[in-house]
């Protein structure tokens, strides 16, 4: 007889034997469904996003290579661009800056993002306007194509005139779609596209104006963006002003990096979902095994070897696991279609949802594997069930105690650990993070196991004769032979641990977002205020009955030397121990000077703030920057302030809350050093209502067309809207993961249910009342639920802290409520299931249960 024929026959036995238990087994194995669903949805979605980014990346960048600079390109760069154009390289240019836009007829104003573009911009992708020809025909005259929001907020129409500085443009159309458009860009600074031929007429680009100069390049045939970058980057980075170069590939990386945080969170959710599924499978199958003791004993009598028995049930479990995983994959695909909808407006690209076969296959594969490995552990004990049980049936617990002494359990246990590590690795993509996740889970398992043993021990001590019978009975159930304390605490506790971790992380991520929305005292900010305009602006604000909250001077500067060593020499330092990060040495700083520390958004973490009246040149540096610059208190830093060198001593390090809508600074000077330097101002003012803000903005722009202003309430509302989308996405995923916990709990309780049922029926036969049986169950399940939940929740605080610190790289505050809610909900559920079992006791007639025994 061939081996395959014999396997076929055994499979047939497995199929027939599963007949009445199929649905039950499917229920247990389908714990894996939610995990697979999460995996398939998340992986498909991630794949969709990266495919979309890849497909749209040239359009998103607008060309093969993007050159940007904070100031007009140097002559050397312009000359290079001209020569490139002559040799067939496509070149298109854009200059963008913020400015106040004024509708000529009404005088209504709004900060707009002016984008002065050359013909042929963008090289790739398409800017869609309505009417359609408007954007293409823009270069024929002083035309502007603007975001619809400009028309709405300024109460204007196509055909009206838009004043930008001293130039007047005819609005000929509205923007319908701009590649790479994030909703938030249009909301904070709605765009106005004009032809760059009329840029100078606006007179807006004055000293200190923040403008970005861009050139898009299309590589000629045969020249790759990377090779181009390699050849010309030295020229660009040494040019003054420095020119940054970005290729399509780099842009892609950037875009995907932006959604990394989301990816990290989703990856975590997927892993947790899968593990919860695995735990659900393990405890469900354990309950299933208890029901199969008799059948297995008979099979053994009939000559089935332990291998044959195991094979029969592994085949059943694998088949049901596959069905469960398939159900999960189908739901995952459905879920995948909802994700882009939930995250719309937050993603940098239009995500086209497509079936991702590799993600589906991976989800199915991992799902079935996890299901089978986790099922294998309880199934193993079937190998050791003695045929003697046919003659003399012992209690389930006794049978299992003997059956679980199996060295193969070690092998399977090892396989489970290895699988957890492997799955964690596929989720995290970095070795140390994967190992970290797995280690945290193992620590949690061990801790929960200890807690369970502790509970069993305590219950032995607690169950004193003086205690009421029902309570004593319930508590004693926790340490009696055949108790399920360890199994329930482990699965319930691990479930709570994983879910509460997700919630802790979610809460912390949301708190961060919330912080960013913290209200500032001012509701309108004016910037690009020139030195000679500051006083005039101040009086306009006060004359209109509003108040100036803060005026901050802004002085652009660069680092010239640290402790007498020039920037050039510092940059040449290649020693990783002493090297200061290059970007901090090269960048332009917009610094300020003031007497006092800004309360609320700053605090000193090292050194001391200058004494009032101290006029020696000192600086206070933001902590991250100070670290990147490797500054130590007392260092002297020489600054190049528009060609004049100023040296100041570093005397304090500050922690800055950047999220506040207030001007914050990397470097603050003590008063007395920069007063003479060329500077501009940012002025924060407060006006009681929205119309008053608008009126104030109008009167300022009328007098000083170069001054831009922002209505902060508008921005806060807009950012709030976007953040809401992110939070609801995170919340949605967290909610789903709560659902993952429920099958786990059901499976965990199912394992004890039969024994408790039998016991309850026996008690009933002996005269226990419904209330007594109910109370016994209540005591037992409440204790189990509470201890499992509390231990799990406590452990989750630790894991969430580690996650926030190392994965999300931000601060952590333990979120008490999520932990309490998850733990409370699970305890409640445990009690409810326990009581439902108690109720069932009264539906069963004693005979049914006794005959079974």
């Amino acid at each position, binding site marked *: *007889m061939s081996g395959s*024929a*014999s396997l076929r*026959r*055994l499979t*047939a*036995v497995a199929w*027939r*034997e*599963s*007949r*009445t*238990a199929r649905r039950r087994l499917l229920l247990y194995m389908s714990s894996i469904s939610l995990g697979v669903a999460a995996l398939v949805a998340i992986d498909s979605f991630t794949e969709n996003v990266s495919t979309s980014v890849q497909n749209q990346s040239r359009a998103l960048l607008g060309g093969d290579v993007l050159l940007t600079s904070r100031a007009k390109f140097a002559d050397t760069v312009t000359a290079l661009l001209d020569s490139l154009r002559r040799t067939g390289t496509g070149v298109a240019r854009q200059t963008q800056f913020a400015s106040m836009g004024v509708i000529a007829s009404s005088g209504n104003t709004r900060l707009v993002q002016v984008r002065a573009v050359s013909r042929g911009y963008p090289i790739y992708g398409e800017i869609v306007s309505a009417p359609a020809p408007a954007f293409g025909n823009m270069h024929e005259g002083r035309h502007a194509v603007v975001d619809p929001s400009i028309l709405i907020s300024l109460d204007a129409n196509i055909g009206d005139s838009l004043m930008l500085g001293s130039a007047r443009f005819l609005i000929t159309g509205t923007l319908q779609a701009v590649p790479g458009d994030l909703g938030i860009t249009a909301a904070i600074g709605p765009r106005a596209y004009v032809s760059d031929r009329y840029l100078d007429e606006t007179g807006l680009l004055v000293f200190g104006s923040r403008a970005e100069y861009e050139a898009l390049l299309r590589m000629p045939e045969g020249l790759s963006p990377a090779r181009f970058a390699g050849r010309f980057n030295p020229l660009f980075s040494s040019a003054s002003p420095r020119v940054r170069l970005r290729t399509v590939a780099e842009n892609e990386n950037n875009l995907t990096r932006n959604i990394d945080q989301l990816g990290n969170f989703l990856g975590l959710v997927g892993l947790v979902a899968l593990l919860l599924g695995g735990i659900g499978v393990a405890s469900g199958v354990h309950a299933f095994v208890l029901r199969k003791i*008799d*059948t297995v*004993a*008979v*099979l*053994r*009598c*009939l*000559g*089935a*070897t*332990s*291998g*044959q028995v195991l094979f029969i049930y592994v085949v059943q479990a694998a088949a049901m696991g596959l069905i469960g995983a398939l159900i999960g994959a189908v739901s995952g695909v459905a879920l995948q279609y909802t994700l882009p909808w939930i995250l719309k407006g937050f993603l940098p690209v239009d995500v086209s949802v497509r079936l991702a076969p590799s993600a589906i296959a991976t989800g199915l594969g991992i799902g079935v594997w996890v299901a089978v490995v986790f099922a294998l552990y309880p199934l193993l004990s079937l190998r050791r069930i*003695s*045929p*003697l049980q*046919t*003659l*003399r049936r012992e209690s389930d617990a006794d049978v299992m105690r003997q059956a679980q002494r199996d060295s193969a359990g070690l092998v399977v246990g090892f396989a489970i650990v290895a699988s957890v590590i492997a799955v964690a690795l596929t989720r995290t993509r970095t070795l140390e993070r994967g190992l970290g996740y797995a280690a945290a889970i193992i620590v949690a398992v061990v801790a929960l196991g200890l807690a369970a043993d502790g509970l069993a021990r305590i219950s032995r001590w607690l169950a004193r004769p003086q205690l009421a019978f029902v309570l004593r009975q319930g508590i004693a159930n926790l340490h009696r032979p055949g108790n399920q304390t360890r199994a329930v605490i482990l699965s319930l506790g691990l479930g709570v641990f994983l879910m509460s971790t997700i919630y802790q992380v979610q809460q912390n991520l949301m708190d961060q977002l919330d912080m960013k929305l913290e209200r500032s005292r001012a509701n309108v900010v004016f910037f690009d205020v020139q030195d000679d305009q500051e006083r005039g602006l101040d009086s306009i604000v006060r004359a209109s009955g509003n108040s100036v909250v803060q005026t901050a001077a802004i002085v652009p500067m660069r680092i010239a030397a640290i402790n007498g060593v020039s920037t050039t020499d510092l940059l040449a330092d290649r020693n990783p121990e002493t090297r200061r990060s290059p970007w901090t040495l090269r960048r332009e700083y917009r610094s300020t000077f003031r007497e006092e520390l800004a309360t609320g958004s700053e605090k000193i973490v090292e050194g001391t703030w200058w004494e009032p009246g101290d006029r020696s040149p000192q600086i206070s540096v933001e902590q991250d920057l100070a670290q990147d610059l490797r500054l130590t208190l007392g260092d002297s830093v020489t600054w190049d302030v528009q060609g004049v060198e100023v040296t100041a001593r570093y005397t304090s390090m500050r922690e800055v809350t950047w999220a506040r809508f207030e001007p914050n600074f990397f470097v603050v000077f003590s008063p007395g050093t920069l007063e003479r330097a060329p500077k501009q101002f940012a002025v924060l003012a407060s006006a009681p209502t929205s119309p008053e803000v608008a009126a104030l903005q109008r009167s300022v722009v009328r007098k000083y067309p170069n001054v831009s202003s922002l209505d902060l309430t508008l921005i806060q509302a807009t950012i709030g809207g976007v953040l809401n989308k992110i939070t609801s996405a995170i919340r949605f995923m967290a909610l789903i993961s709560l659902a993952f916990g429920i099958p786990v709990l059901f499976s965990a309780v199912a394992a004890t249910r039969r024994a408790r049922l039998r016991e309850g029926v026996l008690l009933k036969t002996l005269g226990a009342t419904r209330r007594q049986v109910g109370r016994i169950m209540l005591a037992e399940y409440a204790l189990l639920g509470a201890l499992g939940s509390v231990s799990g929740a406590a452990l989750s605080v630790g894991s969430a802290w580690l996650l926030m610190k190392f994965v999300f790289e931000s601060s952590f505050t333990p979120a008490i409520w999520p932990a309490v809610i998850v733990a409370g909900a699970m305890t409640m559920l445990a009690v409810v299931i326990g009581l439902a079992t108690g109720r069932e006791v009264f539906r069963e007639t004693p005979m049914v249960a006794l005959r079974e025994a």
Partner: protein
Amino acid sequence: MLSAKDLTKEYPSGDHRLTVLRDVSFTIEQGSFVAIVGPSGSGKTTLLGLLAGLDTPSRGRVTLDDADLSLMDEDQRARLRGEKVGFVFQSFQLIPTLTAIENVQVPLELRGEEGATERARDVLQRVGLGDRLDHFPTQLSGGEQQRVAIARAFSNKPRILFADEPTGNLDSDTGNRIVELLEQLNSESGSTVVLVTHDLGLAGRTRRIIRLSDGVVVSDQPTTTGATPRQNEPTETR
């Protein structure tokens, strides 16, 4: 062909050991029909478990067809059971999820034999259940269930059949018919039948009675009625 030599079985009980069987020895020839009798707690079931290789003795050995069970591991004994041993239990022990014919097929399938279905149908017809093939155990009466169990026991033509109180859960009429069936199969197929019972009337229908008391064999004698093999005798000889 089946021999027990100095079989002793002890169980740990608190700090001392409880001896359930002590130095039990006997030999049972192929094709014989033997009863093991004794009051409750005399060690009958323990002895049956040891003889069938379901359990291992503390001391002594069981030899079945020249195979020493004490030298085999659990899986080797399982294979031996599959090939040579059949069981009939007091509580039938049918697999509730399988139909009558499927229950009978199981031992054949475990051995990977061809034609399992035909064989099973054939045996069930012989025990008079040809019209009940596709019924589940719960749809059958106690007597019918026991007949399925007997059909299952004989489906792989065992060298030896162990029956543990096979009529214990049945009324006397049904019980009688079960015993007849065992007698018939014993004589037709030449299988050894070892019947464990506390019912002396039932034991009297075998050819040899081994009496156990407190774990020791107190007598081992041929019965008068069962001195010669019976060929398809009519019922009721008691």
